[in-house]
């Protein structure tokens, strides 16, 4: 079972990974966007870690709802509402339980991804974060490691696509040949989730 600590570890690991990869995300955002994805997410997840330390919510759902609200309040752009909605809606779907199963997490995350698709109007293949998130959720029942692999594969697979949502869509065919920064950061989020699970397993031994 996964408790509030697990979800805090997930958010902390995401923050560390976004910090590490911020420049790469911004570099990916330069040719097809406006070169700020890394710095925007870094600002948001730094704030998430700070608020989780201060408020220390004690259920998995509350951790994610608070993290999501914080992203909406600090990131701006499209990433703020989209990542914020992902975490908030996943958190709400988890309810008030003190611990949740991996199956419950899968269902909740699917609800979160559905909410992101509804908000942004993007579908798989549009060259957005959805292209990493949907395969990850599909693979999650198998294992955290499988979800990570699927997310990373999904992010790479955005390269040949033509963007149909977000700022890259304004470039039309010129968006082809560039990996989507949003799908890349979504893969970081799922990688951090797998990392949190592995750290938990190591601690259990």
């Amino acid at each position: 079972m996964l408790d509030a600590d697990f979800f805090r570890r997930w958010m902390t690991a995401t923050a560390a990974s976004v910090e590490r990869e911020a420049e790469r995300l911004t570099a990916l955002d330069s040719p097809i966007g406006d070169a700020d994805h890394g710095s925007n997410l870094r600002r948001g997840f730094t704030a998430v870690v700070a608020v989780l330390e201060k408020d220390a919510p004690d259920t998995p759902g509350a951790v994610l709802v608070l993290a999501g609200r914080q992203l909406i309040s600090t990131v701006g752009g499209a990433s703020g509402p989209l990542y914020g909605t992902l975490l908030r809606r996943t958190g709400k779907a988890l309810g008030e339980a003190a611990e949740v199963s991996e199956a419950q997490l899968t269902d909740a995350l699917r609800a979160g991804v559905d909410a992101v698709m509804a908000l942004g109007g993007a579908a798989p293949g549009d060259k957005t974060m959805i292209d990493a998130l949907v395969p990850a959720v599909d693979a999650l029942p198998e294992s955290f490691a499988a979800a990570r692999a699927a997310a990373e594969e999904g992010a790479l697979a955005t390269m040949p696509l033509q963007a149909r949502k977000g700022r890259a869509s304004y470039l039309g065919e010129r968006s082809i040949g560039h990996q989507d920064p949003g799908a890349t950061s979504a893969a970081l989020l799922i990688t951090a989730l797998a990392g949190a699970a592995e750290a938990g397993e190591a601690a259990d031994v």
Partner: protein
Amino acid sequence: MRMLINVAESVVADALRGMAVAHPELTVDVENRVVVRRDAPVDGKVGLVSGGGSGHEPLHGGFVGPGMLSAACPGEVFTSPVPDQMVRAAAAVDSGAGVLFIVKNYTGDVLNFDMAAELAEDEGIRIAKVLVNDDVAVTDSLYTAGRRGTGATLFVEKIAGAAAEEGQPLERVEALARQVNENSRSFGVALSACSTPAKGSPTFDLPAGELELGVGIHGEPGRERRAMMTSREIADFSVNAILDDMNPRNPVLLLVNGMGATPLLELYGFNAEVQRVLTERGVAVARTLVGNYVTSLDMAGASVTLCQVDEELLRLYDAPVRTPGLRWGV
């Protein structure tokens, strides 16, 4: 790239601090990033709130004041503001007559203003929204995010602002804003990429001797790249792109807008060419505005915006306005 800044993280806050001391007629909340006209909320007057990424100055903070915006929310550079800012702005300017959000069609701006509208309505503020999407360079289809909002934002804010100043009700101000947007079309070209403070170098490569046609205001590349053209050729291309999309029967407002790094010497020369094409195409120009109004940091280049007006829209455009970036009739 050499920039007159301290650190990238504080450019927006630093600019707001400077704006506050330069313009005591505005209330500038540096911490929460909201610029409000000093006398807000004005009794019985609809509030006009706009906002978007920073880097487009004087848009939007520079358009706050009597006759135009009631408040503006600057985001990070090229990044939309967050809902908290917009809700705060709406609360600061609402007199009970409601608030109109003027939103440029960028995914981030749209999503954040949508969330803000919900939150503000929860607080009992009546909200209407108008989306500005005038950029003909973007293929408008179900499979894109739609046309970008660019130069027409100035016309929407000016004309809706004048109507609000007269005490017209929210529904009417919203309808006018929508009409101005529907009557407006824009096209932009870049002669150089811009550099964001966070990146510190040009956001895209534009080799010497080439230009980007159909560029946006966020440093994203345009739709097409060509060998450098003359001012005359760029005017022909831009105006024709707009007129392929609209057929103005009435006179138009013309905005010849600089992207930030193109001097007025060039903009006025470009305006002469734009006016020549318009005359050739039989389009009468009622008013002309030339200058840097909707910029893109240090990008060189220009955009053209046309807005077809009737007598009422022209009267509202001519009404007095007193803001840092636009001022006449007072």
